[in-house]
């Protein structure tokens, strides 16, 4: 199954040039070659057969687990020329994911729904992480702390106290890495994945077919959000692990000196870096939610990505204007680096707590905007 998906997915970018996928457009799509197409088409057909008499939970599962690839392939064969309208209606009519085979009842149905959602989530995570682009971004994200550590090792750390700390204790590279990456690199990476989430699928034409599966728009959006959250967590973990391993290899590691001048045991220091990791992750999830909302308004993934990055840059520039200090607490970016409270003794939770509240507010507002837009829009491409 997975090899078939790969083959088809490798072909998908060919579609993006056309933008529109539909009856007439599908004729212009180059034919998918090789066994992959046949196998995937087979999957598509089987989905249709099963969906026709969708009575058992198994059918629902395979309908969801059958992945968007099936839908994409169907479109290429022009079999679902008439189902475009259905796709949008289906989503609008069944926002909560009650599919056409809604004969299921009680706990069984609920657990089947959960299993189906889990499969959809797994497919989404696979889609995010198996992309060469994602792998490349994760590599870049991992390389920066390593380079940083190597540079401090070779050239020493003159002047900059934070860097000098790294030379004295490799663990410090963990938070140095975060303070270097949270202003730009990390938001950029998250914006690429989150901005692509809906707009990318819409642009490729896979979104409408994804919606023909009885997943429901709300659940699909939830899965997209969970995928972004998983990616944000993975990025933060890659950074912190790369930094800690580099620090461990290049520098002495021992008790940690905090900003307050207090020295705490190694384990305490690790826990504090873990706290920073979670904080940064939540911040990036908030940014990802914003990008997801932007992504729900457009069919051009690059538009959503650029918009998000521009928003990040603009709000960081605004933070440099002293006259605009009033609005800075309301800007998302001004909270990204407020994790230094974790490095004070006693733990200064005030700033971080407010940051978490700001992130939660952003997630609530932009998550609901994405939901309102995505569940009410017509999927035309």
């Amino acid at each position, binding site marked *: 199954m997975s090899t078939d998906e790969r083959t088809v997915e490798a072909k998908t970018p060919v579609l993006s040039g056309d933008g529109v996928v539909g009856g007439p457009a599908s004729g212009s799509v180059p034919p998918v070659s090789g066994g992959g197409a046949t196998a995937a088409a087979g999957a598509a057909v089987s989905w249709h057969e099963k969906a026709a008499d969708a009575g058992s939970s198994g059918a629902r599962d395979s309908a969801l687990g059958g992945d968007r690839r099936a839908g994409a392939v169907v479109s290429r064969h022009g079999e679902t020329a008439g189902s475009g309208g259905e796709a949008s209606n289906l989503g*609008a009519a069944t926002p909560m994911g009650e599919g056409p085979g809604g004969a299921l009842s009680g706990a069984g149905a609920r657990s089947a729904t959960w299993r189906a959602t889990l499969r959809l989530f797994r497919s989404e995570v696979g889609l995010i992480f198996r992309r060469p682009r994602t792998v490349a971004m994760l590599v870049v994200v991992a390389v920066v702390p390593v380079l940083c550590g190597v540079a401090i090792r070779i050239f020493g750390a003159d002047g900059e*106290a*934070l860097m*000098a*700390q790294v030379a*004295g*204790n490799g663990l410090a590279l963990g938070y140095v890495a975060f*303070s270097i990456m949270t202003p730009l690199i990390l938001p950029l990476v998250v914006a690429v994945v989150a901005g692509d989430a809906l707009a990318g699928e819409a642009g490729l034409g896979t979104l409408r077919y994804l919606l023909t599966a009885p997943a429901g728009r709300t659940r699909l959006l939830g899965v997209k959000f969970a995928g972004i959250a998983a990616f944000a967590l993975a990025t933060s973990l890659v950074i912190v692990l790369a930094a800690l391993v580099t620090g461990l290899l290049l520098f002495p590691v021992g008790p940690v*000196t905090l*900003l*307050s*001048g*207090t*020295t705490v045991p190694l384990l305490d220091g690790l826990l504090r870096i873990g706290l920073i990791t979670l904080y940064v992750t939540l911040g990036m999830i908030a940014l990802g939610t914003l990008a997801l909302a932007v992504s729900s308004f457009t069919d051009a993934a690059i538009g959503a990505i650029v918009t998000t990055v521009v928003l990040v840059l603009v709000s960081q520039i605004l933070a440099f204007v*002293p*006259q605009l*200090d009033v609005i800075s607490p309301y800007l998302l970016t001004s909270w990204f*680096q407020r994790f*230094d409270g974790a*490095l*004070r*003794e*006693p733990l*200064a939770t*005030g700033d971080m707590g407010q940051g978490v*509240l700001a992130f939660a*507010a952003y997630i*609530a*507002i932009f*998550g*609901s*905007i994405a*939901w*309102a837009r995505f*569940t*009410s829009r017509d999927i035309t491409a």
Partner: protein
Amino acid sequence: MFTRARVVRWGVPAAALLVVAGAIGAGPVIAAVQGEPQLPELTADQLLTEVGARWGGPGSMPPMSGTIVETASLGIPALPAVPSGPSPLALLSGSHELKVWYGSADQVRLAIPGPMSEQNLIYNKGQAWWWDSAANTATKIKIPSGTPAPAPLPTAVTPPDAARLALAMAESDTAVSVGNDSTVAGRAAYELVLAPKAPESLVRDVRLAVDGETMVPLRVQIFAKGAAEPAFEVGFDSITFARPAPENFTFTPPPGAKVTEGDLPVLTQERPQMPTGDLAVTGKGWTSVVTLPFDATQFKDNPLLAGAKTVAGGKVITTKLVSALITDDGRLLVGAVTPETLEKAAG
């Protein structure tokens, strides 16, 4: 039907926005709904005596810890050139945070948090340390025995310190009254209003919020004439009356840090070049004017001087709270009074 469904859907983000806006705005609203805290009535004289007895002299404070926020809006242009660090000039504009732990008169810790840095003054039984994380230096400060803990910075004014200064002023020509009880740092507080009687003073009044239970000054606000917002305010943002953990007062220089001995480095390094020479004070109390020699050419490019107004015999800088007159014969006159008073004092 379709449009109605859409409207309902867009109602969700609208509601989310309202909830967030409500949560942000809830603080003042809740305070307004709760109204004034109920404290036993005290007359101005009783309150002044009560507060003055404790804070007029070397006051004693119960063990506490808290966060102090200091805000100055003197009405001078924001100074982008001023580093946001703990420089004395930073006092002039913006908001600054300070953390304080107070165990007893000989156990005090003050922390000035900065972005990815922190400065600490730790005073423990005659031994004082100054820790600067950005410079990675620990300085052991020599203190003559018997003196109280030094203030690390001119900016590090605690509300009790400010209250002491204000009460000293109250001994001169002042109308003392009791304002409305208010809530400061979550505690019910009396408000003591000290208003200068002299018409030439730029100060409308100084308001002291005093904790209703412990009589600890929680907030000091200075209002300029004709301004609704305080020109200067220092107050507790949060306060806990409990003995802080003893770890707060112990300091061992961390490995790798530069350890030196001497004065407070901030005071010696970052103090602006104070003009040397005679410093004369004329007038007293609220209307006192400080005269000192001043070389204007040295400060030619200073943004403060750019806004100066030329008058007969010199240049005048006015802010909401303070006026300064630079005379052509090389004197600087400063006071919380009208420019005309300065000109008169300059003679």
